[in-house]
């Protein structure tokens, strides 16, 4: 809790002693953190260290084995919902809809109804909103293309636009740029940072790339095992070994943390 002493506001997310295990295999152990509204948290760590598991708990597709996660003081819903948007590394958009339809679908899903199709005035309003957000992410030239005609970066822009039109308060990003070229990745970083500031989102981003973790966001979590038993490595789960405020720090501290963590990328798979 002391990490967030800087701000007086009540935390948006409270993680209380969360464990996750599959049979004997402990993935996460004893997680205790709080996150305030508007933070941009990046989660790094080795493969299989539980960072994606934690993200899925926030998403609602995975439930903790022990402990609880509170969202605004309430237990976080155990299924995905419109308050938490998600962008996956792939399969995030609907292949049978054009770019415009993909984004308009968000508006259709928000109206209560059987089919999620829009008609008449709702439809033209949704089209307007969709075009506006596609403008914002730079996809206005590809409105009538199908996802398979888009490049990897454009697909992720589309996935982000789709998620944001749902006006989520939390945006979850599961290695969203892992498959992209470095140049395009930089563009995407800028896009995400701009949207985060503009829409005052709370963002959780899982990444393999430690640099990305440092460059983006206000807070960096490193997931790793706290204890090691060489005979039975599955008996101990991972926890958050570093919880660092980043972004606003000056260059020397940045360098110091960077040096501290330097060995990490070598055992990243």
């Amino acid at each position, binding site marked *: 809790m002391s990490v967030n002493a800087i701000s007086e506001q009540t935390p948006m997310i409270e993680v209380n002693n969360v464990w996750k295990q599959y049979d004997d295999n402990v993935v996460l152990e004893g997680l205790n953190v709080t996150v305030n509204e508007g933070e941009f948290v990046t989660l790094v760590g080795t493969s299989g260290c539980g960072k994606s598991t934690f993200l899925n708990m926030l998403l609602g597709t995975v439930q903790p084995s022990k402990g609880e996660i509170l969202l605004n003081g309430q237990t976080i819903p155990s299924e995905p919902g419109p308050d938490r948007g998600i962008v996956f590394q792939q399969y995030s958009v609907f292949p049978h809809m054009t770019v415009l339809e993909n984004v308009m679908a968000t508006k259709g899903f928000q109206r209560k109804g*059987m089919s*999620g199709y829009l008609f008449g005035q709702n439809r033209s309003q949704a089209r307007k909103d969709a075009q506006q957000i596609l403008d914002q992410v730079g996809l206005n030239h590809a409105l009538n293309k*199908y996802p398979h*005609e888009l490049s990897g970066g454009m697909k992720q822009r589309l996935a982000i636009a789709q998620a944001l*039109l749902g006006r989520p308060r939390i945006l979850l990003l599961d290695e969203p740029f892992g498959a992209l070229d470095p140049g395009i990745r930089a563009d995407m970083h800028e896009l995400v940072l701009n949207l985060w500031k503009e829409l005052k989102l709370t963002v959780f981003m899982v990444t393999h790339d430690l640099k990305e973790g440092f460059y983006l966001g206000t807070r960096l979590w490193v997931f790793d095992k706290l204890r090691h038993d060489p005979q039975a490595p599955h008996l101990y789960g991972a926890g958050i070994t570093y919880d660092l405020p980043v972004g606003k720090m000056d260059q020397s501290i940045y360098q110091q943390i960077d040096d501290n963590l330097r060995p990490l990328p070598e055992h990243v798979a």
Partner: protein
Amino acid sequence: MKKLINQKPNKTLKLFLVLLPFVLLIILYMASSEARLEINPNDKLLPSFSQIADGITRMAFEPSKRSGEYLFWQDTASSLSRLGMGVLIAAVLGLIVGMVTGALPLFSAWMSPLLTVISLIPPLAVLPVLFIVFGLGELSKVVLIAIGITPFIARDIQRRTQEIPAEQIVKAQTLGANTSQIMIRVLLPQVMPKLIDAVRLSLGAGWLFLIAAEAVASTDGLGYRIFLVRRYMAMDVILPYVAWITFLAFFIDVALRQLNQKLFPWHAQGGKS
């Protein structure tokens, strides 16, 4: 010389290779037919092409002496309407059952094992039951086709529904979608082209059940006619009927494939998100 596995025919050679077996078969038939007719001009087993043409004219272009109808066309219409009805019912049922079991674990739990057992019942073995329950009219034939291919379509659609990445279903929920919206807006459109493919694959079995049902109890239809004229060894009618059924099957298959490409361009181009 390249290895055999790397050798591909060019365009001309390919066309030649496509036509070659058909031409050889026709030549073989003509030669055999001629040889037999030379020995016995009244031989019925391998009629000449002119005899077959006579047979076709008699069935298709001259009204029947008994009923005044053009039998060939009437048979075609009856058979196609039975097949169409049966396949349509099977497609609708298969789509609903397949999607429900593929998308909703609570329904899959009791429907999937049931479906597996039902799909193992040989449809022809229950044909007598259908005749007893539904009578000898159109209904029992349509039901046989529907019963015969619904389990196949349902299981195929179930698998196709499960193949759709879970990420899409999670994503739709984070956009606010409820269960029926996900099924109608996300799953159904992606399963539709697979449904047409499943129908194409099941049409062979559909024809089988149609002809079997017509052979056993009917008053018209392509299968009925073939089995009727068998009594007179009328190969000059049987052979063109078989060729016509083959052509219809081929034509329906091509038409469905083109319909698929037209209706679902994203699928034809390999859209996988």
